[in-house]
């Protein structure tokens, strides 16, 4: 046995020498920024990857950028399907990654761990104060900064004014999820079963789960990366979701499908508990509904409780294989680190600024026609400081997948015993992710 072991050990060593060695994850030296003389003469072709509305946002600022940096020619690609796999393949192959790319917050740690992203710690220092610390935390790996925050996703409930008026529901009176449920039931009854309160598809239960868990102050991992999902907070969220579904107030429509976008302009769904960026989709897909929308804070779990959460948001990175780091950084800095850019992205494409120092701008106080005159921008800034922190790990996307699958199965089987479900989920995560279970877990507390 040990002979076999040695044999394989040796074989592995040989393979390792021939294939692995040049690719050890040794992060490159930190990027120090363009030299003082260089700044105006920086030149080159940049390829930038970004997704849908964000890509349009970058394109909109491109003329201004070109005026400032006439010698940098940037092309912005809307990255299509299988974003993560493609980016990872490019990192692994050492070729084909864009010079600058947008990533979801929870992804940053994963790519940073490969050692294939440019260490931006030195150049990012200057902007440290502009972004909240918990946002920076999602951009870091082992104490180094690898990404610059772009937008965040403070949450609220988007609602259709006409439906609320028709059935006499006052959004101002919905203070707790209990109120929200009651309103949903009333709506369902009054509309003859036609109008549901919100969309909660079997296949994507994780969206609401994650949003609510964060609002409730729950975690999937504790600070040390141990599995902490089996908690009373999670249980509370599950029970809430179960009551919504069982009361018939949810619509089973797949997110981002045609029926989903279609629901914006029909009576099938009354509200969308979502993040700020969702407004961009409303404007984009249902321009005809202008004036009919409003936003109210997430209902609290108990009176006086936290009424906000965060979902989504993104950061921008420069892969290590980028040759024109000065040009890439100049682009990133111009597009993301300037207050004017952050405001423009929000104004044009609803990407809510991660840069909190711009919130003082009077721009946030403008009443918006699309929302029937409500100053929705101000609304979203109000609670940013109160968003509970959620710990993200390197394997967050994988985790999300397992949570989604488990929840889907749980929902498919009639949403049985929530405690049992959490214990199963916890065991599954521990096994699949090879992580310890946090000491505070309900399964650990049980005698």
């Amino acid at each position, binding site marked *: 046995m040990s002979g076999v*072991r040695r044999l*394989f*050990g040796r*074989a*592995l060593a040989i*393979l*390792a020498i021939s*294939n*692995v060695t040049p*690719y*050890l*994850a040794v992060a490159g030296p930190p990027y120090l920024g363009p030299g003082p003389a260089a700044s105006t003469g920086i030149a080159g072709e940049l390829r930038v990857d970004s997704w849908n509305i964000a890509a349009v946002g970058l394109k909109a600022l491109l003329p201004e950028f070109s005026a400032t940096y006439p010698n940098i020619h940037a092309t912005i690609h809307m990255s299509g399907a*299988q974003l*993560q*796999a493609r980016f*990872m*393949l490019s*990192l*692994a192959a050492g070729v084909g990654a864009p010079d600058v790319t947008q990533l979801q917050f929870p992804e940053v740690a994963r790519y940073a*761990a*490969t*050692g*294939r992203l440019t260490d931006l710690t030195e150049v990012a220092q200057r902007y440290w104060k502009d972004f909240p610390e918990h946002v920076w935390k999602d951009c870091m790996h082992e104490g180094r900064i690898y990404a610059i925050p772009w937008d965040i996703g403070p949450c609220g409930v988007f609602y259709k004014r006409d439906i609320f008026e028709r059935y006499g529901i006052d959004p101002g009176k919905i203070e707790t999820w209990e109120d929200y449920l009651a309103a949903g039931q009333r709506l369902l009854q009054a509309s003859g079963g036609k109008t549901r309160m919100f969309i909660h*598809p*079997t*296949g*994507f239960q994780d969206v609401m789960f994650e949003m609510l868990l964060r609002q409730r102050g729950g975690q999937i991992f504790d600070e040390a990366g141990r599995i902490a999902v089996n908690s009373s907070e999670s249980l509370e969220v599950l029970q809430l979701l179960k009551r919504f579904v069982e009361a018939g107030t949810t619509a089973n429509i*797949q997110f981002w*499908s*045609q*029926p989903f976008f*279609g629901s914006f302009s029909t009576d099938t769904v009354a509200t969308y508990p979502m993040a700020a960026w969702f407004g961009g989709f409303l404007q984009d897909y249902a321009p005809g509904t202008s004036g009919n929308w409003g936003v109210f804070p997430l209902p609290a779990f108990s009176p006086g409780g936290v009424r906000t959460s965060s979902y989504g948001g993104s950061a921008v990175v420069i892969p290590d294989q980028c040759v024109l780091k000065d040009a890439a950084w100049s682009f990133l800095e111009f597009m993301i680190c300037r207050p004017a850019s952050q405001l423009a992205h929000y104004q044009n494409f609803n990407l809510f600024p991660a840069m909190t120092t711009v919130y003082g701008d009077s721009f946030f106080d403008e009443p918006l026609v699309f929302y029937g005159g409500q100053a929705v921008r101000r609304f979203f800034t109000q609670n940013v400081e109160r968003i509970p922190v959620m710990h993200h790990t390197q394997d967050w996307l*994988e985790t999300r997948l397992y949570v*989604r*699958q488990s929840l*889907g*199965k749980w929902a*498919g089987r009639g949403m049985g015993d929530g405690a049992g479900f959490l214990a199963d989920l916890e065991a*599954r995560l521990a*096994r699949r992710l090879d992580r310890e279970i946090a000491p505070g877990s309900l399964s650990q507390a049980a005698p």
Partner: protein
Amino acid sequence: MGAKRRSLWAYRHFYLFISPFFILFAVLGLYPLVFSFVLSFARWDGLTEAHWVGLNNFVNLFGDELLREALWNTLVLGFLYVPPMLIGAFILACLLNTGWLRGRAFFRAAVFIPVITPMVVVALVFGLLYDYESGIFNYVLGLFGIAPVPWLVDEDWSKPALAILLVWRWTGYNMVLMLAGLQSISKEYYEAALLEGAGPLQRLRYITLPLMRPVFLFCGIMSLIGTVYMFDEIFVMTSGGPGASSLNIGLYLFNVSFVDFRFGYASTIAYTVAFFVFIATLFIFRFQRSEGN
């Protein structure tokens, strides 16, 4: 020794001619097989250092719910589409085998075109046909007063939706094989049967079907193996979703390899699956042969 060397020299052209193939084969066929086998005992993401983990990867196979699900989906999908596809291919082959048929080339071409169409295209078009609100499938169901079906967005319907697509795509292919089988049946059997006064159904029952059995078996097994390793169809159509309801082994392997970058574990799965598929195939063909005798 000298004689042997001389004979090797005498056949130098043989070795010369096969060497381009074998050199390439060694580098991109053989070495990868060994590499992947060794990797199956390691943990490696292709980026950071590899670690030797012994049999851990194989142990993990047992606790892998996704693998179990993928296996289950593969079986369900296989049994959903293979039987109707084989029956359809057989009927088509019989129809095309009719002696007096005109326009055979046209019909054969028509049912064969799906085989050569890029799968991406097929999947995208079917995506439109399956659309909940504007798709043809639900439109036709609506004509019969049947409620629309959430084809690709519901865990229970993703497999049937894929099965329909697979029947559409692969029936023509199997038809060609069946037609070849039918044409190899000697006319004498039928003439003898006619002399005995056997009707068309009896001829089918007692001549065609028994003689076609090996062809059916062959097509069936090949299709099932195809289902295990199928990739394009599912990757483009559903990406294995919703949930993991249409994830098969092929796509799961791809995901573990190039989405999760767990190269070691992926090799473990690949080898294990290949081993069992091989054993199963061998077993079935053995069984068939011994029964045929």
